[in-house]
């Protein structure tokens, strides 16, 4: 007869209870958030201010304190979708190869003749060999520098693609090397962006990789995407290059491996530089605000061991010559090397204000972005608009819930009451699951919940209608209820699997707020099937066992 085995009853009740307990923190959002912030502060600082102490005690420690994250459209904040221009790295990688190849080829100068670098596209190194008939030998020498790729996917492939064209060696990164370089570049950019945003101390930023070469950055609480861009510091690339000459003509023709960059503080002054940097900002181990010998703000820096040696060797060999400190394609200063700088530390002077020096030190310390970024998409949502949206969503959800409940009770009486309780539990379960998995609630997500309220009762409706039909053909109440559940099952499963499929596609292909909608909708489908099949059934069984009605009106 109408029975649910004990272990099932216990399990259902346990799920309901867990749902309510884990959803509960969301009902006291601000209080729990304050509590969580205080806990973070405690682990960070070790102690708590009286206000933090108060915030902490506002929510008991033993209760769950996971909250649903609010999306940017509800909380306000800025979002950027950045594309990392991975090809930038090929250029600097290839530029740095020149000295190495020159050295190797020069060792065989006797057979190869003069070796010169010639103009080439970015990311390509072309070397002209004096004796054009010795290309095979040149190739042999070049191949000795060609090491196998060290990535998992590129096993057996070489790092460089070396070909010959007439009397030139053409050297590029191989496809396997490009792929592994791309991956590293994006990963590195992501880490640097994360560090810079963390350094600014904003709460709950989300920095995730999207696809192969994109980074999605979301920072709640920022007023504009511009602020976020400044925080990331789109271009902060520091290099130390040798100066070939200075000029006042920005379009002066330069040789291969040379470039013209402007001075950052003197208008009309340009430097012709060797494009291969001596050392780069990536080799810095430390940077801090400092003062120069005249007491002006400056930035002190220290290189790592290998860069310190390179820099030491370079300064020793070039005493009396100028070298340029280049930041973001501008020469911030070009001091003359006074002496051999051993130990790898020094200061950068460049007419900074104290703030500029501090900022530059921070940027250098956080590391330079390995490649430039293009912003494909940006969004800013003001906190007021987010608050308005939450208010509107809450109101609509409350009114929708009341309407659905009234309609259900008017249509099915006592059974409608059961379905309405199940609906409440359903919503608690959605919030509980969202909180535990760290899901993000967006405005369309709220719409998804409201829509779920409408559709969640569907499974109940199917069952109740079926029970009605069974009652009509003169079945006893208990039998009718049992058959109602049994026979409505295949329709419930089919209907929900198809809906689930479309929601899943929405989740996989959707982005941003739309995905937020898909998440609540997906969870809503699962929980509504659970509540409709098990929770209302449990209620009905309890009710039936107590009342033992001879007939039921539905």
């Amino acid at each position, binding site marked *: 007869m109408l029975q649910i085995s004990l272990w099932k009853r216990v399990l259902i009740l346990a799920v309901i209870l867990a749902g309510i307990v884990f959803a509960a923190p969301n009902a006291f959002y601000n209080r729990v958030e304050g509590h969580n912030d205080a806990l973070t502060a405690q682990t960070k600082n070790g102690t708590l201010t009286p206000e933090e102490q108060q915030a902490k005690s506002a929510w008991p420690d033993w209760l769950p304190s996971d909250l649903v994250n609010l999306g940017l*459209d509800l909380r306000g904040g800025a979002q*950027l*979708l950045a*594309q990392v221009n991975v090809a930038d790295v090929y250029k600097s990688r290839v530029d740095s190869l020149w000295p190495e190849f020159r050295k190797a080829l020069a060792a065989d100068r006797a057979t190869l003749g003069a070796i010169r670098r010639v103009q080439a596209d970015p990311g390509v190194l072309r070397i002209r060999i004096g004796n054009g008939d010795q290309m095979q030998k040149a190739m042999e020498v070049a191949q000795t520098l060609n090491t196998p790729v060290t990535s998992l996917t590129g096993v057996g492939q070489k790092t460089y693609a070396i070909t010959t064209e007439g009397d030139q060696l053409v050297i590029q990164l191989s496809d396997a090397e490009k792929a592994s370089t791309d991956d590293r570049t994006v990963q590195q950019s992501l880490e640097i962006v994360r560090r810079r945003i963390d350094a600014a101390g904003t709460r709950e930023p989300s920095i995730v990789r999207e696809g192969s070469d994109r980074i999605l950055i979301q920072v709640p609480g920022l007023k*504009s*995407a*511009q602020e976020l*861009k400044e925080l990331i510091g789109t271009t902060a690339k520091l290099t130390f290059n040798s100066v070939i000459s200075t000029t006042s003509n920005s379009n002066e023709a330069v040789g291969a491996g040379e470039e013209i960059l402007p001075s950052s503080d003197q208008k009309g002054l340009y430097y012709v530089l060797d494009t291969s940097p001596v050392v780069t900002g990536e080799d810095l181990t430390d940077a801090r605000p400092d003062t120069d010998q005249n007491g002006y703000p400056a930035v002190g820096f220290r290189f790592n061991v290998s860069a310190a040696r390179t820099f030491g060797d370079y300064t020793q060999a070039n005493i009396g010559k100028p070298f340029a400190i280049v930041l973001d394609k501008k020469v911030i200063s070009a001091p003359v090397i006074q002496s051999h700088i051993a130990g790898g530390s020094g200061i950068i002077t460049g007419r900074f204000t104290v703030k500029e020096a501090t900022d530059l030190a921070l940027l250098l310390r956080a590391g330079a972005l390995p490649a430039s970024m*293009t*912003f*494909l*998409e*940006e*969004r*800013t949502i*003001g906190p*007021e*608009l987010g608050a*308005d*949206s939450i208010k*509107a969503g809450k109101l*609509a959800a409350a*009114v*929708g819930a009341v309407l*659905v409940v009234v*309609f259900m009770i008017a249509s099915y*009486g006592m059974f409608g009451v059961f379905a309405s309780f199940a609906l409440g539990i359903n919503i608690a379960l959605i919030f509980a699951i969202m909180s535990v998995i760290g899901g993000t609630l967006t*405005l369309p997500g709220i719409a998804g919940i*409201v*829509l779920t309220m*409408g*559709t969640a*009762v*569907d499974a109940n*409706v*199917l069952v109740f*209608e079926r029970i009605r*039909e069974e009652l*009509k053909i003169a079945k006893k109440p208990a039998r009718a209820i049992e058959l109602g559940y*049994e026979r409505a099952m*295949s*329709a419930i499963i*089919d*209907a*929900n699997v*198809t*809906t689930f*499929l*479309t*929601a899943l*596609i*929405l989740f996989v*292909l*959707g*982005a*941003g707020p*739309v995905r937020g*909608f*898909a998440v609540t909708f997906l969870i809503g489908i699962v929980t509504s099937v659970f509540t409709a099949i098990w929770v209302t059934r449990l209620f009905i069984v309890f009710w039936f066992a107590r009342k033992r009605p001879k007939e039921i*009106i539905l």
Partner: protein
Amino acid sequence: MAFRLKLVPEKTTFDFFKHQKLTFGFSVVMVLASLVLVLTMGLNLGIDFRGGTTIRTESDLPINVGEFRQAVTPLDLGDVTITEVYDPNFRADQHVATVRIQAQDGQEAISPETQTKVLAALQTVNKDVKITSTESIGPKVSGELVWTAVWSVLAAVAAILVYVWLRFEWQFSIGAVAALIHDVTVTVGIFSLFQLKFDLSIIAALLTILGYSINDTVVVFDRLRENLVKYKKMPLREVMNVSVNETLSRTVMTSGTTLLALISLLVLGGDVIRNFVFAMTWGVIVGTYSSVFVAKNIVLFIGLNRNKEKKDPSEKFFDKTDVATD
């Protein structure tokens, strides 16, 4: 006897095929009209699909759209659309307008200078105006989003086609998919007719409609499958009528609760998601109509081979089958 709200009488014997030429013809005309509308008037594509920038502005002072337009014209930003937004939730002194700017040449996302210039220009005509949100999408991403949108709708339809085919008969899956195409086309058509903003969220709504409509259709099909076994000698047309009549009360109840929830969202949920909710509301109405008047007509039109030894797929899926217990 306790009071029960019954939108559908206890037992109905409507002949849903009586006016089938009219109802099915009406659907065909609606689909064709939608296609013509989309082809001639096009869609008012949002920046998700064509790139550009939307700036939402708010002011305590009344907003004059004409003045706004004049203020931004000298900035030479190309195609600029300014719309005032109304919502019952707004305070009496809350005036909202959106400014939509086309994608600028050579830029992916909008430059902050442009944004500052627009704000400054608007402030000359409405000193209280401030920006509450901006959204800027470059041509690269918008191009990809168009494909994502098309793919997701196609993938959803294909998934449903296969599922319904596996669980029922192939005729059912053709019928179901025809109903889905009907729903999607008619919904896109109304967006073209009223030139409502069509963006990524509308695609989400379309997929939701697909899910809802197939839900409805499958419930009717499920009953049809059951009745085909029960009434072996009854003509297909009548079995269909019986099935739709038997599930009519459920169809009305579920559409009713869903519409109640959606309408409260439509009215009170704020203007940010109004188009999204409108698409879903409209889709639920169309979807309900199509599962009663489109899906099964197609199945009837193709015809079913009923002599074949009928396999009931539910036996494979569930231990307890409902059909034979009577």
